[in-house]
Every structure is written in C-alpha cells, then in structure tokens.
C-alpha cells in the first residue's frame, strides 16, 4: 500500500479504534453503561425499543452511505489513475432518494405516535404526588383525599467533604438524598410537577419520566412500575448554581410497606404539631438549628456563615440585629433575590431553631432564643 492509501485506511480505522479503546477503558473498571436504560415501566420499555429501532435504522443507512463513500475513496482515487466521470444529475435517482426516506420516516412515525399517546395518558391515576422544584431541592406532597397531606423536602445527602475531595466518595455519590420519594409498586401514580422559583426538570431514567417543573404552571406525568427498588435521577434543567446537586431518589416498595410508611409520616406530622406547642432549651434549639442550617442554608450562606451566593451570616447586621427583622427574612425571604421565603418550607420548630442558631453560631453570640410559638405569632402578624 502506498503512503496515501494507508492514510485513508486510517480514516476508516480511526473511529473503530476509538470505539475499541472506549470499550477497553470502560472494561478496565466496571463496565460503564453505554445505552439508554429500558427501565422498569412498560412505557420505558416501549421508549427503549423505539430508541433501538431508530438507532438500527440509522446504523443500516449509515453503513450503506459510508460504505459507498469509502468504496469511492478507495477505488476512485487519482493516485490509482482513475479518470473522472462527468455525470452530474439523474432525475430518477434523485427522486428515489427523496421518496424512499420519506416512507422510512412514515414507518417510524407510527410507533412513535402510539408511544407518545401512552405517555400522555394521565387518566385513571390511583394516587397523586405534587412535585415542586426549589433551588436546589425537591418537595414531595402526597395529595390525600382522606386525612392530611404528607409533605417533605428531599435534599442532597452527599457531604461537602466528599464533593471537595476531602473524604472518599460513596457508592451513590451525588445521587443520594436525605428523604426519598416513596411509592407503592403496581400503582398508577400521577405526578403534578411545578416549581417555586426557576424552571427545573424532574427526571428519573428508569421510570422514563422527565417533566419540566415550571413556576406558576402544573405539568402532569405518570408512572407505574411492577418492580420494587431504588431508582435515581437528577434535575435536568439548568436552575442555577447547584443544579448539579439536586438529585431524585425514588423508593418503590410493596403496597403494604407503602401504607405503613405513610402512617409513620402522618404520625410524625402530628408529632411536629405537638412540638410546636413546646418550649425548648438553648442547647436543643442549637442542635436542631445546626442540622436545619446545614440542610437548608449552608449551600448559599457557607458552612462557617461566611456567605457565598447569600450574604455572610457571621457578623451580619440582621443576624445580630433586632429579632423581628431576622424572622422577617427567614419567613418571607428577600423578594427578587435567591433568598427565598422559608416560611412555607420549614415548620415552626425548625424555623425557630435555625434562627436561634444563626444568632448564636459563627461568633454572633447574641444569647437570645426563638421559640416555635414566636414564629407562629410572627407569621400571624
């Protein structure tokens, strides 16, 4: 082979070698996933089959098209003494390669349409979960016809020291939350998806659900899975600084287990109500406040209260100023900034604790305390 031919051979070989090295590299550790998951739902499997169908059609067409091209590159070279032909059109061929692809597309459109209609079939849901995107966490609320709604926030559980490479990263690095969404198996669950601030998108590949969470609007999506298990996903729409740090974990359990879990959650809610009436000691408030702070405020105000997206809490005029001013910001936020109204997100016990914590941690040492009843009264006005 002459030098040029070898080069050309390399042209074909390049992608192949790359694919091989990709596979080799992947095989070195665990084999990484290279394809879409079929997931655990019927719709997910249909989407997967559709994806594979279109992929194979593309591969077949690609092999044909690139085959012809590489043959031409091989056979019709000047260096081999090939004389150029002079043809430059052919109505028949041109009509053929306009019409045939058109029919292939029609063939694809049928299964695509039927799968899409299934995705949109939101009727006959057995239960509803309201999913609300916040910067940067998810809130789940079980809309309950009998009894009270159960609702909670689901925050990233991975620690800052794992993220900043101080500690080793755990198995579910960035895909773990403090409280997963719990769903019963074999039940058609409808998600009502919305957002509190900017647009987010709720995506769990194995449930084949991705739906944008748009503030002020409610989108619908649904799933039904026969398989129990833990399924992980992430926010898919850029929503600001910590967009990469608001995972989704869905825990699908048997219907019995789900009923039990729901009972516990309802009991917990009742307990919080009781706590609201109590008075706490400084130590109790500080301990609880630290936990609440780390879960809800640290991302913007920093581990040492030094600030970041948010202003510094250490030495802040508000945190070391009059109590009502501090409560005002905690409960109602600062409109038009990233400081949201936490009044609807934290219960009064947690709010009292975190305000107390901010006033006494980071060297603020104000020495005063906020009790749940103070928060309650403040909210009442």
């Amino acid at each position, binding site marked *: 082979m002459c030098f040029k031919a070898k080069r050309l051979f390399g*042209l074909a070989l390049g992608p192949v070698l*790359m694919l091989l090295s990709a596979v080799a590299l992947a095989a070195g550790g665990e084999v*990484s996933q290279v394809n879409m998951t079929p997931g655990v739902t019927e719709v997910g499997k249909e989407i997967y089959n559709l994806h594979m169908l279109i992929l194979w059609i593309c591969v077949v067409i690609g092999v044909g*098209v690139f085959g012809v091209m590489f043959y031409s590159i091989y056979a019709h070279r000047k260096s081999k003494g090939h004389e150029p032909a002079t043809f*430059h059109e052919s109505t028949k061929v041109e009509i053929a390669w306009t019409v045939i692809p058109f029919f292939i597309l029609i063939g*694809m*459109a049928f299964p695509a349409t039927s799968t899409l209609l299934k995705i949109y079939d939101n009727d006959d849901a057995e239960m509803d979960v309201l999913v609300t995107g916040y910067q940067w966490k998810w809130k789940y609320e079980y809309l309950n016809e009998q009894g009270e709604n159960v609702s909670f926030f689901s925050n990233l559980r991975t620690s800052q020291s794992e993220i900043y490479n101080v500690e080793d990263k755990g198995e579910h690095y*960035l895909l773990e939350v403090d409280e997963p969404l719990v769903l019963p198996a074999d039940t058609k669950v409808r998600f009502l998806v919305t957002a509190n601030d900017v647009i987010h998108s709720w*995506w769990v590949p194995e449930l084949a659900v*991705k739906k944008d969470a748009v503030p002020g609007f409610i989108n619908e999506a649904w799933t039904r899975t026969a398989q129990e298990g833990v399924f992980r996903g992430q926010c898919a729409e850029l929503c600001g600084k910590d967009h990469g740090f608001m995972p989704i974990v869905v825990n699908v359990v048997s219907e019995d287990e789900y009923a039990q879990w729901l009972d516990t959650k309802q009991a917990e809610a009742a307990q919080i109500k009781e706590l609201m009436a109590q008075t706490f000691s400084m130590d109790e408030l500080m301990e609880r406040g630290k936990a609440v702070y780390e879960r809800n405020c640290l991302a913007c105000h920093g581990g040492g209260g030094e600030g970041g997206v948010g202003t510094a809490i250490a030495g802040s005029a508000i945190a070391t100023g009059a109590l009502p001013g501090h409560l005002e910001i905690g409960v109602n936020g600062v409109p038009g900034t990233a400081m949201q109204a936490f009044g609807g997100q934290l219960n009064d016990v947690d709010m009292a604790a975190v305000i107390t914590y901010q006033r006494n941690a980071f060297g603020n040492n104000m020495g005063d305390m906020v009790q749940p009843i103070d928060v309650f009264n403040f909210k009442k006005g």
Partner: protein
Amino acid sequence: MGDHHHGPAKGITRWLFTTNHKDIGTMYLWFSFAMFILGGAFAMIIRAELFQPGMQLVEPAFFNQMTTLHGLVMVFGAIMPSFVGLANWMIPLMIGAPDMALPRMNNWSFWILPPTFLMLASTLFMEGGAPAFGWTFYAPLSTTYAPPSVTLFIFSVHVLGLSSIMGSINIIATVMNMRAPGMTYMKMPLFVWTWLITAFLLVAVMPVLAGAVTMMLMDIHFGTSFFSAAGGGDPVLFQHIFWFFGHPEVYIIILPAFGVVSQIIPAFSRKPLFGYDSMVYATAAIAFLSFIVWAHHMYTVGMPVAGELFFMYATMLIAVPTGVKVFNWISTMWRGSLTFETPMLFSIGFLILFTIGGFTGLMLSIAPADFQYHDSYFVVAHFHYVMVAGAVFSMTAAIYYWLPKWCGRMYNEAMGKTHFWISFVGFNLAFFPQHFVGLAGMPRRIPDYALQFADFNMMSSIGAFIYGASQILFLYNVIATIVSGKPTSDEKVWDGAEGLEWTVATPAPYHTFETPPRIDPAHAHS
C-alpha cells in the same frame, strides 16, 4: 474615490476606515479566530473541571458562567462571524462583483463586534459574575434570578443582532444586484446560494431574538411580567420565542457550511457537483422547515399532545432534504478522480461526522424518545457533531482551500494533514463518549457527576484537550503561510477548482472585477 487603482491605506486607518470587502473579510476571520480561542479556553476550563468527579478547579457558580460564555462566544463570536468573513471575501469574487453592495455599512457591521464581545467578556469581573443561565437563557433564571450583568448581556445581544442584520442585508443586496452579466441565479456557486438563503433567515429571526431580550429587559427593569407567572406572564412563552429564533439559528450556522463543502468536494473529485438544482431546492426546503419545528426543543415542557405530534412530524421531515444533500455529496465523489489535500480531508471529515449528527438529530426528533434524551449529554454530543464537526470543520476546510488565493502562498500540506488527523481523533474522543453518558442518564450543564460517568468523562476531557491543542498547530500553519509560505502565482491553485474566484490573479489583488467578467452562457453553474 478618485483613483480606482490605489492600494490599501497605510497603518491602522486602513483597517479602521476600510470599505474593502477583502480587508473586512480578513478582519472578520481574524476576529472570529480570536473568539474561537477565547471560547475554546472556556471549554478547556469546563473539561478540566469535568476530568474527574468532585469539584477541583472552579466553583459551581463559575462553572455555569463558563458554559454560558462558551456557548455564546462560540455561536455568536466564532462561527457566525467567521462565515460572514468568508462571505465578504468570497461572494464578490464568486459572482464577479467589485465589492459588496453596501461597503460602508459593511465596515460598521464589523466594527461594532469587538467592543461588544469585550463588554460581554468583562462581565466576568462584575459583582455577581457573568451571565450563568446557559446560552439559551431561559427565564426566569435569566430575569428575576439573574446577576446584574444580564443587562449588559441584553445589550450585547442587541448589538450582535444589529451586526448580523446589517451583514445580511448587505449580502442580499450584493447577490441580488451585483452578479456579473450572464450569471443567473441558477448559475451561482452553491456557497453564494446557501449564504443568500441564510441571510434571509437571519433577517427574519434576529429581530425575534431582539424582541425576546427586550421583553427580558422590561421584566427586569420596568416591572412587566412577560415571563413571570406571578404577574400573569408565562416562562414557557420565553422558550417559544427563543426557539423560534434558535432553530433557524442552527441552520444559519450550518447552511454556509453546506455551501463550503459543496465547493470543495467537486474540486478534489475533479467532477461537477452532483444534483446542483436539488441542492438549491433542498437548502430552501430546510430553510422553510426550520421555521416550523422550533418546539422540538421543548418536548418536555408540557405541550398538548397535538402540538408534540405536529412538531415531531415536521422535525422528522427535515431529514429528507438533509439526506438529499448528503447523497449528492457522495455522488459527487463517486467515480471522480479523488485527491486528499487538507481541505478535502476536512470536507470528508465534515461529511462523516455531520451525517452522524444528522442521525442523532433524527433520533432526537422522536418525541417519546426525546423524553429520555432531552437535556442530557446525548444532546450535547448531537450538537457538537453538527456544529463543530459540521460548521467548524467546514470553516477550517475553507481556510485551507482559499488561503493560497488570498495570500499567494501555499500552506504546509503535511502540517495541514497532521492538523486534520489530530482534530479528527481529538474531536471524536471528546464527543463520541458523550452519547454514552447521555444515554446512561447524565444531565448536561452540571459541574460534577456521579461515579458511573467517570471513565467516559475523562476520555472526553482528554479528547477535548487534544482537539484544543490541534488548533495551535492550525494557527501556526496559517501564520507561517502568510509570512513565509511557498509563493504561488497560479490563478488556479487547485487543478480541479471551478469558479470566478480562480480567474483573478494570485494573490487576489486589492481590487478585483472592476470591469465585470463575461460568463459563458453555455457554461453550467460552477
């Protein structure tokens, strides 16, 4: 101008006040290359942070500024101006015109660009940082929740739009009025055709973009609520307006690239372009369809199912004219007499990789499947195959192809080929694995990722560094050619090249076609 045969003015005023299409084309090309390097530097920061899981180099907020500026600078600073530069240089030469129709406006549309990008880049040093809401700047992240720099961003977009519209009007006026006698529309080189259609797209959609950012400005500073549900507006409205601009925009980027390879492939196949007429019709069809497919970027936003179906069918249809083009290029090579100089290598690279990007585009058009693909790295892979291996490869091919005509010196072929092979391998190593991580569930625009995505991300970063480094070789080769390349005075630098630009002297004199050339009526298009 009194004396028609004067050369360029001396010193800096030559460039500041020039109305010469070649000078302006040169400035556009150098400027876009500088932006390519700047946008590339942002990309290197992104890929360095993504080299390994965990946060190493930058903070998440800065990471978002990098992805945003990378996208904006590459689309509006590198790709678009580079093709405008090429249009300036080549359209008058290809249609036998002495200059562009509106030479003073031409000067203006270039010179408003550099200060604009300077302003945009300077937002990095502002309090609150540069824009961090992605190049698609969805509201309300880009309005209520945006840093103060958003106002400068809006101003930049206005000026860029102004520049593009002026450039387009100029191209339309030139092509419509200044063709040499005998050059009918169906005899124009395809590069001229694709640019003419692109210019109409630009004039149609740039005002829409300007409208979108103006509404943002009103929401931010004047109390309106176009995009805020709290005030009765709708954040999704923003996306409809943006993509009504945005989808035609991607064709604004790729159509001139189609034109370039339609010039180069016949030249190195020594055979006329196959299916010239159908190329023109396919380009027009793509341009038309590009106006009615915008919501394929919004399948998950919560549209009614009838809307989804309409946009899915319309998007799938684009595959037909796109396929026609690919088949035509391959038929042009078929039974030609092929050689593989650097411009041809980059054109073949374009052909292979753009086709792959077209395939993934077809996959993305399937709405139910897009529920899994959308906003994942699969989309990132798709658009880098069409924009980098499509638009940038074709632009690179164009530089190698016409550089000898521009400066009368030959570039170093071995170095050019090396540049191609390093780019080709680096590009694929960078972007092919992104299909895998995307399908496996990695969202785009995240500064850190779960462990199962680690190996492909590392590969991708290595590929990106290789591709980035190969551009240094390119820059060196171009400068070396201009300074000390082997002189050539052949009018026709490439034996298979056709077209009026190859009838003028090499290097192309400062003024060309002061008297229009005669087009042989029997001669087919070039």
